[in-house]
């Protein structure tokens, strides 16, 4: 897809051509056998299909352009050795295009999932709980804007790279979060989103190995993803303290730790690396009681310096509760403004319960339950609420 988009300069044309090429492959490969380089075969076939289409449908000016593309393509075929490298570069270009700041963030998410994640429009629409027609329109509008406004297929220049990379990392992390903690629906986790985000994270790390935040994001996702199954054990939401730590994915944890060590050696900390470090401390604890909360608090303090925000402050308050008591944490939470975030109310309810203000806690649980759109998380909050009013 990425290679063809660069050749043809048009995402829709590239998509249709790839689909046609796959259809041809399905018809031909069972009889003729799989070619030595299947990906190369698909690219070459799709290229030819696209060119046929251009010739059929276009005006003379367009035909000349197509002929030029064909000429360029033949030139590039002489350098088949660099093909592999080109594919990787094309992926990088495409992800920067999908996450261009001139596109609305919801369009960035949808395009990245569609073009790099290979999810269907139906799947994306279902995940974001919008009608398929709405999602199809969102995607086609974004593609039209890329074409009409001339959003380039290019890795941004050095001066632009940090800001543009931040946008890309945010999109990947949003996809991951939507997978790990589905904002709505009956499922707690959407495994395909988690897997897709980790795959994109790996791709970015391979393409931009010198960027510590890219490595940090991959480490963060792996360390969190390690707890995915434990978090939803037996079809219920299980909070961190109560999870079966033996069922955490040790391979992910080992890889996350390894990546984090690379980051530490470079000593260029950033928000994703710090969050990864916090999760690594959790993974180090054999039991919840063994957690090194001091270390975690220190990391949150650093995070508050480089990336302050109400959600970080809320998470920090949870750590303060472990170290200095719920009373102290409650005072911190009361200074945070996050009225629409169900977890804010869930944390506050828990702290109120712990300081013995049961009536206030019950009210706060009710707000949290009302704000929570995910069924399994809501069920968990309802259980907490019921056990509170029973006691």
């Amino acid at each position, binding site marked *: 897809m990425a290679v063809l988009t660069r050749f043809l300069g048009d995402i829709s044309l590239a998509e249709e051509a790839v689909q046609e090429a796959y259809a041809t492959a399905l018809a031909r490969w069972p009889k003729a056998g799989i070619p030595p380089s299947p990906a190369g075969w698909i690219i070459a076939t799709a290229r030819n299909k696209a060119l046929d289409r251009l010739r059929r449908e276009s005006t003379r*000016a367009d035909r000349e352009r197509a002929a030029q593309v064909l000429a360029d393509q033949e030139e590039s075929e002489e350098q088949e050795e660099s093909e592999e490298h080109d594919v990787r570069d094309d992926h990088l270009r495409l992800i920067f295009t999908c996450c*261009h700041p*001139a596109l609305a963030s919801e369009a960035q998410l949808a395009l990245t999932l569609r073009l790099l994640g290979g999810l269907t429009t139906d799947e994306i629409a279902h995940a974001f709980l919008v009608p398929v027609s709405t999602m199809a329109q969102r995607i086609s509008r974004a593609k039209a804007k890329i074409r*009409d*406004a*001339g*959003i*380039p297929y*290019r890795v*941004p220049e050095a001066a*632009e790279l940090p800001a543009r990379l931040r946008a890309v990392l945010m999109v990947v992390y949003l996809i991951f979060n939507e997978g790990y903690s589905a904002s709505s629906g009956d499922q707690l986790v959407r495994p395909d989103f988690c897997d897709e985000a980790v795959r994109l994270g790996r791709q970015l790390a391979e393409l931009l190995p010198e960027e510590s935040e890219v490595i940090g994001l991959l480490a963060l996702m792996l360390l969190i993803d390690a707890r995915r199954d434990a978090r939803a054990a037996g079809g219920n939401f299980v909070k961190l303290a109560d999870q079966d730590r033996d069922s955490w994915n040790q391979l992910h944890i080992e890889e996350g730790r390894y990546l984090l060590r690379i980051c530490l050696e470079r000593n260029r900390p950033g928000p994703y690396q710090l969050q990864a470090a916090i999760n690594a401390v959790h993974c180090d604890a054999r039991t919840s009681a063994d957690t090194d909360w001091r270390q975690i608090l220190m990391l949150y303090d650093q995070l508050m310096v480089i990336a302050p925000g109400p959600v970080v402050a809320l998470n920090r308050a949870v750590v303060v509760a472990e170290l200095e008591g719920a009373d102290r944490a409650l005072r911190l939470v009361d200074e945070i403004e996050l009225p629409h975030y169900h977890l804010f109310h869930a944390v506050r309810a828990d702290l109120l319960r712990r300081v013995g203000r049961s009536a206030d806690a019950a009210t706060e649980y009710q707000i949290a339950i009302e704000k929570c759109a995910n069924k399994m998380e809501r069920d968990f909050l309802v259980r907490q609420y019921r056990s509170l009013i029973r006691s």
Partner: protein
Amino acid sequence: MKRYLLSVCYPAESTQPSPEALKRIMSDVGAVRKEMQDAGVWLFSGGLHPSSSATVLRHQDGEIVITDGPFIESKEQIGGLTILRAPDLDAAIGWARKLARALTTPIEVRPFTEYGD
């Protein structure tokens, strides 16, 4: 090469900057225009009088009816525009960034349709 329209947006009720501030803005904007011209990307630019100075022509039952403007009543007004040539949106954004710094107002970047190019 594509062509882009860079529109200068400001709220209708926005007050004029002080004479000194205006002088500095005009000289900054002039410097950006000079840079565009030297780079060979500049096609046209100009500032506009307030929208109260506008006149609107409408086609109505085969007649052209002339009325006092503006065409669209809105809070945001186009205060000026620049048209430039750029290979892609990022290049156009690069110039718009300089213009936004000089003018301290929002800038809208919009591509022209390119028929028959």
